[in-house]
């Protein structure tokens, strides 16, 4: 192997500028960011209500639940898995905390903790089946999706739970910033994104998550305990679904057995994929996911504002997911 530089390095400021532009365009979050900007330009041209400050705080409140779900989903997808159960697990956690607090007389804080733990338990179940029995994540989480759904309906007896004690509503409360209302839940979401970014990019655990998703055999050969990494990912994903349940409760102000079953589930996966994380594992960032979740929120909000019926919003989200996955597949093919 010679020491020659293998990039075609050519001198000149123009060349350097071109390379810089290419590098910026190749950065993983640029694509999603451009998509977000285009969407926003589109909707602000269609309706002048879109750019109002109050509309933005509304979008962020809608994004917060899906955004937190999508953190866990990102972790799972980075390991080349997928979690179809995220929405129904969150729904179950939400029912656990509200029923305990409203109907069983449990103190609000322990009720929240138990609800989150219920989601963590589902994460542990998913992770154990994926690592222990070596089942595909798709099948495991398709199963736990239905188990969580059934548990939600039996445990709640199909009742809704309200009024909720104020502790359960804390993250729905708002404060004023730059003329817009922000909820504490949005702040929590941003904090969670910062933590996830740090863990994925600045710690050895994060490297191992990428390596396991990228080439599990190579990861094993370098001494990484692949099963332990996978299990930690599913458990942490369960934790984020539990926190998302807490935020959902704070936003809707009731425990609803029919919540979080269709839109949130698909939206979380859509957010991750739109954010540039590869379904083949090993590639992607949580910052991309945050942008992806915002795109989904902007779409839903904008389509509602310009009067598109809900059923067509499903249509649009469905097309969006397939588009994003196609882009992922095409770039991957070019890379090989």
């Amino acid at each position, binding site marked *: *192997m*010679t*020491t*020659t*530089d*293998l*990039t075609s390095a050519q001198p000149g400021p123009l060349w350097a500028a071109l390379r810089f532009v290419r590098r910026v365009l190749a950065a993983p979050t640029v694509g999603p960011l451009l998509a977000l900007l285009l969407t926003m330009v589109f909707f602000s041209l269609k309706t002048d209500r879109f750019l109002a400050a109050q509309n933005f705080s509304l979008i962020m409140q809608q994004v917060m639940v899906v955004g937190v779900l999508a953190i866990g989903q990102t972790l799972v997808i980075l390991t080349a898995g997928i979690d179809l159960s995220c929405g129904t697990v969150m729904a179950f956690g939400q029912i656990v905390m509200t029923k305990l607090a409203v109907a069983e007389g449990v103190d609000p804080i322990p009720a929240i903790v138990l609800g989150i733990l219920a989601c963590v338990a589902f994460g542990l179940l998913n992770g154990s089946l994926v690592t222990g029995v070596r089942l595909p994540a798709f099948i495991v989480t398709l199963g736990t999706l239905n188990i969580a759904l059934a548990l939600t309906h039996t445990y709640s007896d199909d009742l809704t739970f309200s009024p909720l004690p104020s502790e359960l509503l804390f993250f729905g409360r708002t404060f004023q910033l730059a003329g817009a209302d922000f909820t504490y839940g949005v702040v929590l979401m941003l904090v969670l994104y910062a933590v996830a970014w*740090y863990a994925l990019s*600045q*710690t*050895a*655990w994060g*490297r*191992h998550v*990428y*390596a396991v*998703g*990228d*080439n599990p*055999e*190579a*990861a094993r*050969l*370098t*001494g*990484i305990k692949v099963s332990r990494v996978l299990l930690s990912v599913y458990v942490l994903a369960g934790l984020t679904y539990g926190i998302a349940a807490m935020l959902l409760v704070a936003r809707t102000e009731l425990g609803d057995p029919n919540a979080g079953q269709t839109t949130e589930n698909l939206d979380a996966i859509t957010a991750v994929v739109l954010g540039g994380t590869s379904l083949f594992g*090993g*590639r992607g960032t949580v910052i991309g996911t945050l942008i992806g979740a915002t795109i989904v929120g902007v779409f839903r909000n904008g389509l509602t504002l310009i009067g598109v019926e809900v059923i067509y919003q499903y249509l649009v989200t469905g097309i969006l997911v397939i588009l994003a996955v196609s882009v992922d597949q095409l770039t991957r093919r070019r*890379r090989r």
Partner: protein
Amino acid sequence: MNGAQPILEARGLVKRFGQVVALNGTDFELYPGEILAVIGDNGAGKSTLIKALSGALQPDEGEISLAGERVHFRGPGDARRAGIETVYQDLAVAPSLDIASNIFLGRERRRRGPLGLLFRMLDKRAMRREAARHFAELQIGIPSIRQEVDNLSGGQRQGVAVARAATWGRRLVIMDEPTAALGVKETRQVLDLILRVRENGLPVILISHDMPHVFELADRIHIMRLGRRVAVVTPQTHTMPEAVAIMTGATQSELEQALHKEGGPTETPSPDG
């Protein structure tokens, strides 16, 4: 170098898989500073031997010594901790991570002080610096240590795997068909790299099917047949057809004749100079 102590030595290794005897009491020596090629037909037991030496499987009988001390590897982790690194043919790297991350994969370095202890923060700068130093030592040409492995050619990827092995292999490096997945030009690069690993003082066990490569690189050639070492030859004493004849059993080596006469192993040539 007669009388030198082998860095890695095995005596009478036996490994059975049900009815199949993969290793039938084979011996093995690797001396400091040499490239030892291991050749043999399919099923001759060379990959079983290598797996036993790298801890990937445990022999039923026999003993292995590292620098004169008996060792028992219960897994690849044990061998790795003892300073034995392995390079595999299938480019065992994580393509989405950059070069420095691949070199330190599974052995990441954390920052000193509270950032590292409390927040488990990686010391990326130190890892990049050290990885760059190893690449310079081995004269591996790469555009940047921050480059994703994905953007590298097959030869450069295998270069990353070799550099990782050379970085962590304190005692020796095992290369299991390191060029099998590569093209002609890339193979050349990796062969040169193997020579530089030896120049840097690390002994190498090279498993290869490619006789011209074996004869170009190896100081000694360990020939396996039917689960045994039938000969150890050097490129100076034997020609390629002779080595192949011993490997396939067309001719019996002196060692093999001695084995038949005495029913036990005899002294084998050690590297000269």
